[in-house]
C-alpha cells in the first residue's frame, strides 16, 4: 500500500525521507553537443535539462544593452512531462517562472564582459515531479558554468514546503498537492545572496526563517555538488 502523504509516527515522509532530506540528486554537465554549455539535473523523478547559447549576437539587433549582455531565459515544460499532457504553448505559469529564474541568475553572471550580446538559457522540464523550477535553476547554473561564462558564484535552488503542519525540504508532486505552503528559494551561498524567494501559502514569520535556513543549508550542499561535477568534467592532464 502506498504510504500516506504527510509525516508518519517515525517522523518520516511518504517516501521514507526525513523532513530535512532531499530526494536523490543527480547532476551531469556537457550533455548536449550543440549548446555552449548544458546540464541535466534530477531531483528524484524530476528531470530538467538546461542549455546555454552565447554570448551571441541577438536576432533582433535592437535587443541589446551598451554596457552588458542581455540574459534571455525560457522555462518550458515538455508536453509529456506531466500526468495529463501539457499543452506546449507557454502558460502564464511558465511566463512567470521564466522571469523569476532569469532574475535568480542575473546577479551571478558577469554580463559586463559581453556588452551588446545576448546569453540564452533554455530550461526544459522533461519530467515534472515537483521542484521543477529549483532543479531548473540548478541546471541553468551548471550550464552557464559549463559554457565557460565568467560567474561571481554558482547558484542552486530548492523548495521548502509545509505539510501537515511540518516544514519539509524538496517537496515532490504528491506532497505539493496536499501542502499548505510552498516556498522556493535560490541562492548563491558564496555571495551570501538569496536570488529567488517566493511563497505560495501561509507561514508565520518564524516558519519563514526556519524554512529559509533549511533551504540555505541544502543549497550549500547542492552548490558543493555542482563544483564537484564541474571539476570532474575536465580531463586531468598528467604533468
Amino acid at each position, binding site marked *: 500500500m502506498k504510504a500516506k502523504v504527510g509525516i508518519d509516527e517515525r517522523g518520516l515522509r511518504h517516501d521514507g525521507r526525513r523532513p530535512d532530506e532531499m530526494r536523490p540528486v543527480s547532476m551531469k554537465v556537457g550533455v548536449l553537443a550543440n549548446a555552449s554549455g548544458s546540464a541535466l539535473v534530477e531531483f528524484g523523478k524530476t528531470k530538467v535539462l538546461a542549455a546555454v547559447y552565447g554570448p551571441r549576437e541577438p536576432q533582433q539587433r535592437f535587443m541589446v544593452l551598451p554596457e552588458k549582455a542581455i540574459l534571455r531565459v*525560457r522555462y518550458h515544460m515538455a508536453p509529456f512531462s506531466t500526468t495529463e499532457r501539457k499543452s506546449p504553448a507557454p502558460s502564464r505559469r511558465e511566463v512567470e517562472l521564466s522571469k523569476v529564474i532569469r532574475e535568480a541568475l542575473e546577479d551571478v553572471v558577469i554580463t559586463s564582459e559581453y556588452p551588446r550580446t545576448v546569453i540564452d538559457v533554455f530550461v526544459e522540464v522533461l519530467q515534472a515531479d515537483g521542484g521543477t523550477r529549483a532543479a531548473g535553476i540548478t541546471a541553468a547554473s551548471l550550464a552557464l558554468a559549463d559554457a565557460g561564462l565568467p560567474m561571481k558564484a554558482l547558484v542552486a535552488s530548492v523548495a521548502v514546503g509545509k505539510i501537515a503542519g511540518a516544514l519539509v525540504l524538496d517537496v515532490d508532486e504528491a506532497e505539493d498537492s496536499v501542502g499548505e505552503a510552498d516556498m522556493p528559494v535560490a541562492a548563491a551561498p558564496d555571495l551570501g*545572496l538569496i*536570488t529567488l*524567494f517566493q511563497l505560495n501559502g501561509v507561514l*508565520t514569520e518564524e516558519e519563514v*526563517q526556519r524554512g529559509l535556513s533549511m533551504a540555505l543549508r541544502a543549497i550549500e550542499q547542492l552548490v558543493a555538488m555542482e563544483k564537484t561535477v564541474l571539476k570532474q568534467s575536465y580531463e586531468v592532464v598528467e604533468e
Partner: protein
Amino acid sequence: MSVTPFRLPVIPALKRQSYLSLYKRGVRDDGRSIRSPRQVEIKVGVLDKAEGSALVKLGNTQVLAGVKVEVTSPFKDSPNQGVLVVHAENVPLASPIFEPGPPDENAIELARVIDRSLREVKAVDLGSLVIRPGEKVWNVWVDIYVLDHDGNLFDASMLAAMAALMNADLPDYEELETGEISLRRGVGGRKIKVDHMVVTVTTAKVGSYIIVDPNFEEEVISDYRLVLAFDEKLRIVGAQKTGSGGMKLEELQEAIKVSKEAAQIYFKVLEQARGGS
C-alpha cells in the same frame, strides 16, 4: 522568454545619488520617510456595469479594479466551489514603458502574485459561490487595470482588488426550466463573501536602504523589490522577490519588520473602503 529589461529610462540612474543622500537623512523626494507608503485613496463603486469596482490612488499611481461575474461549471476536482480568476493589464496609456499587446511577464507576475495571496488565505469564500453543486457556480473575475504607473503596482493592485471584491454584488438570477441560469444584471444585493482582508507591502532595496512603497524611479534604481502579502493577523500569506538583484538574509528580516508596519496603514484604509464610501 524572459529578457533583461533593456528599455528602461536612464534618468533615474542619473538621480540615484540624490535619492541615496535623501535616504541617508531618512526621507524621500516627496518628504515622506523611507518607511512610509504614499498617501492612499480608495474609491469604491466607481463603475455601474461592473459588479464591483475600486479606484486606488497610491501617490501618482492609479489602479482600477473591476469585478465581473458569470455563471460557469465548477472544476471537476472542486464541484462545491466557485471560481476566482485574477487578471492584470498594464494598459499602454499608463506609462511610456507599456506597449499594447497581450499581458507581458510583469502583468502576468502581478496577477499571479495577487491571485496566490488571495487564494492561499481563502480571502473569498469560494464555497459561497455555488448555485447548483457540481453544475453551476459563480465565476468571479477580478480585472486589474493599471491606469497610471508611478511604481508599486503590487500594493495598489492588491488594494484595488480587495476593495472591489468587498463591494461586489452577485446579481439576482432565475433558474429556467432548461436548467440554464438567467441573470438579472444590476439587480440584487447579495455581497460576495469576503472572509479575510489581504494586503501586500512592497519594499525596495536601493543602495544599502530598504524603502517602503517605491515610486517608479525608485523601482528603476532598486536592486530588487520584495512583495510580502499579509492577512489581518499579519501572517505572511505570500511572497515574491522581483528584480535582478540578490537579497541578504538580514535584509529579508528587516523587510518583514517594516512591511508589517506599513500593512497596518493599508488595512486601515481598506477597512474604511469596506461597505462603500
